[in-house]
């Protein structure tokens, strides 16, 4: 009883001790903020990584791939059918994207991915990142009339509108075609305009043109028809300045894709595609790399269709597992069943392993460093506690003279340490949570004061700093801080417990 009374009174009357726990407060607050932000980033990143990658990827080790996706899918189902929810064949091939802006040709190295528009949406969050609401519901490679998102549908805060997107669609395509026709008539030349079909320009001598499979129709009218649809990563078609996206081309414009064929040595093939939508995962690595086209067209273009059976080659099968299924276990079973020299089977975590590991490593190192700060605070508490014990020597003598035991006196100081820890860590908790809650306002304020953007959406493709507060992590941080406060008070408390009452009473 007296212990708690005295702890409480000491807490209320010794402000110097409160000063000693400010470092605990700051340490706890910083740890909470850092962990929340890191977890937010990791989560956001994993979401986006996982958004394009399905749970499991069954890949061929060669670019040529393997024939007959259906047969393979059947085999996979036979091995691990009970855990599999959906599968879709894909063809992934490096390629080149060309499009014209003004009079300049842009060339971008890309990853061309052939997807099955019926099943792709079932294995990953792919369609969630598209810009047309209808495409998000049901993926289609047909150009939409209009109605593309002007406001970023993924932004859960204020974001700058993409006004240019309001024009996208058939409307844009018709306007561009009319403009081009007009210019042609005016100049009598065949100067290419943005959105103009490249293959229609007679003066244009494309060295790849000969290898085109998808020969233009005799009467191709860009006002009425489109080439094969392609979905571009948004980073390929736009750039961002001060949070505002500027588009180099819009859905409705035509682009040219150049690919290697199968066979050794590979030949180069090229064809026109019409941009039908943008893919925006906000992972710049993906958004500025991926071009999605219908798998059948890609197979035809690359000569991946076996003329005797009519079945196409694919080089990957994306597998989505049922909820609760163990990804690694299924992977191991598939690995055991398929010849490893031909097939690489990975979970999405495996394929992004180094990236995820790096983030985890960063978090771990930050935590160790910050915990060291709290440890330093522990030594501060130790020093101040020694002072308090010396100052309270006589009081300890009095308590002992009144019959308090050594352990009773010790528990006063241990309890005091615990109380200080609770106050310090509690203040840190409140401070940390408030900081996390208002982190974006704070970042803005800091940006305004220093003139530097603390969080630049140009870099991160997020509008806000993502944060997630994990109660378990917060619990561990609190526990660690309390433990350190108590540990730091053990030595002074022992000293107080061992004081001889007579000498303590004589102490002046």
């Amino acid at each position: 009883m007296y212990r708690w009374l005295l702890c409480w009174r000491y807490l209320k009357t010794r402000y110097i001790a409160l000063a000693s726990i400010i470092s605990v407060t700051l340490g706890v607050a910083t740890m909470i903020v850092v962990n929340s932000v890191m977890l937010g980033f990791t989560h956001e990143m994993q979401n986006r990584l996982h958004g394009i990658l399905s749970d499991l990827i069954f890949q061929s080790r060669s670019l040529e791939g393997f024939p007959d996706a259906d047969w393979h899918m059947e085999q996979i189902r036979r091995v691990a059918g009970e855990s599999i929810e959906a599968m879709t064949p894909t063809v992934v091939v490096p390629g080149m994207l060309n499009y014209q802006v003004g009079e300049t040709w842009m060339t971008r190295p890309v990853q061309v991915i052939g997807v099955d528009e019926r099943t792709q949406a079932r294995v990953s969050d792919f369609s969630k990142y598209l810009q047309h609401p209808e495409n998000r519901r049901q993926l289609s490679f047909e150009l939409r009339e209009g109605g593309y998102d002007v406001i970023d549908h993924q932004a859960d805060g204020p974001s700058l509108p993409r006004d240019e997107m309001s024009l996208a669609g058939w409307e844009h395509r018709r306007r561009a075609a009319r403009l081009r026709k007009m210019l042609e008539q005016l100049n009598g030349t065949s100067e290419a305009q943005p959105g103009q079909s490249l293959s229609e320009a007679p003066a244009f001598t494309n060295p790849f043109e000969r290898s085109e499979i998808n020969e233009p129709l005799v009467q191709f009218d860009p006002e009425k028809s489109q080439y094969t649809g392609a979905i571009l990563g948004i980073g390929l078609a736009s750039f961002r300045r001060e949070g505002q996206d500027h588009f180099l081309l819009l859905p409705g414009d035509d682009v040219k894709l150049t690919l290697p064929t199968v066979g050794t040595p590979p030949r180069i093939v090229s064809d026109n595609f019409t941009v039908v939508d943008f893919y925006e995962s906000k992972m710049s690595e993906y958004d500025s790399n991926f071009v999605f086209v219908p798998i059948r067209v890609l197979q035809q273009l690359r000569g991946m269709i076996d003329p005797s059976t009519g079945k196409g080659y694919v080089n990957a099968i994306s597998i989505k597992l049922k909820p609760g299924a163990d990804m690694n276990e299924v992977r191991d079973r598939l690995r055991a069943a398929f010849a490893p020299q031909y097939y690489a089977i990975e979970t999405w975590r495996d394929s992004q392993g180094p990236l995820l590991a790096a983030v985890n490593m960063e978090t771990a190192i930050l935590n160790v460093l910050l915990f060291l700060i709290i440890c330093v605070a522990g030594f501060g508490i130790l020093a101040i506690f020694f002072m308090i014990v010396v100052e309270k020597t006589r009081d300890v003598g009095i308590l002992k003279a009144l019959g308090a035991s050594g352990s009773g006196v010790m528990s006063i100081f241990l309890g005091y340490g615990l109380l200080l820890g609770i106050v310090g860590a509690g203040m840190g908790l409140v401070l940390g949570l408030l900081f996390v809650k208002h982190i974006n306002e704070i970042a803005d304020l800091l940006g305004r004061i220093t003139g530097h953007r603390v969080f630049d959406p140009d870099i991160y493709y997020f509008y806000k700093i993502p944060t997630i507060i994990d109660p378990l992590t917060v619990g561990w941080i609190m526990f660690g801080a309390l433990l350190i406060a108590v540990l730091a008070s053990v030595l002074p408390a022992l000293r107080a417990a061992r004081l001889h009452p007579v000498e303590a009473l004589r102490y002046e």
Partner: protein
Amino acid sequence: MNKPETATHQCCSAFKTDCDASQSAENAFLPGHPAIAPPHFQLGEQHRVTAEAISHSKLRAVPEETSIKSGEPLLSVRGLVKSYRKASVEIPVLKGVDLDVQSGEFLAIVGQSGSGKSTLLHLIGQLDQPDDGTIVLKNERIDNLPTHLRDRLRNRTFGMVFQFYHLLPELTTLENVLMPVMIGRSLWQYWRERTEHRRRAMELLELMGLGHRLKHRPHELSGGELQRAAIARALVNRPQILLADEPTGNLDPATGQEILNLLRTLRQQEHLTIVMVTHDHSIAALADRIVCLAAGRIRSEEASLLPDRAAAPASRQMATGVVR
């Protein structure tokens, strides 16, 4: 009975190391015959405490059930030796002290500074352990008990009053008085009995004339008030023996007298045995019996210097300091 102030004490005066005193046998209060409050018993106008008030108060101590037979001492000290070490030099403080304290007695131990009287009190009060010798309380040795039992004795059996009051500065007067109660009981136990304890503490403080000072911190009280609060604290657990270490050492003579009278009254009221250490003869004179400590031994006591006793200085009574 004689008025105590008529006694003349020259024992252990500042100019003598040896004690000699002329004291009539009638001046010694016999155990079991508590002294009547002296006529000069008075307190400040504001908080007058009279013996009458005390005797009429509801404060009734539970009579101690002493297992000792009448005539046997309540507390008996034999051959107590204690020395302190300072920079590898051993300084003997007590060199074989024998002392008997009867139940209900008010004993004063006088001696020069450094004569070891405080050390003796600390040893009796279980604040320290002797190098040699025994302390027997109610026929039971208490000098070699395990720590937790000694803690218990300090808490329940002995009440300590110090020269410098030693109240805890963070607590109010009432909380200070309640401190021994809290120390001796678990949180739950204290909580259950808290009204009772609070009433006891408040009654004690009322008795001490501090009823209006319950919520004050020690630094807001005067010296006399502090000492009275300290006495209340010493008594709150109803101890059998009150050990007072220079209780008036820091007070002006009038306040000191007032404290002493309070102690005398309380002894009667609470069935206390009081052992007081002092170097002030006028204060010691208010006790029932005075023993003198010099050079680490009980040198003499007033009663032993009666003519017939003085003739047999080697008698057991002389050596043990028992008044008969």
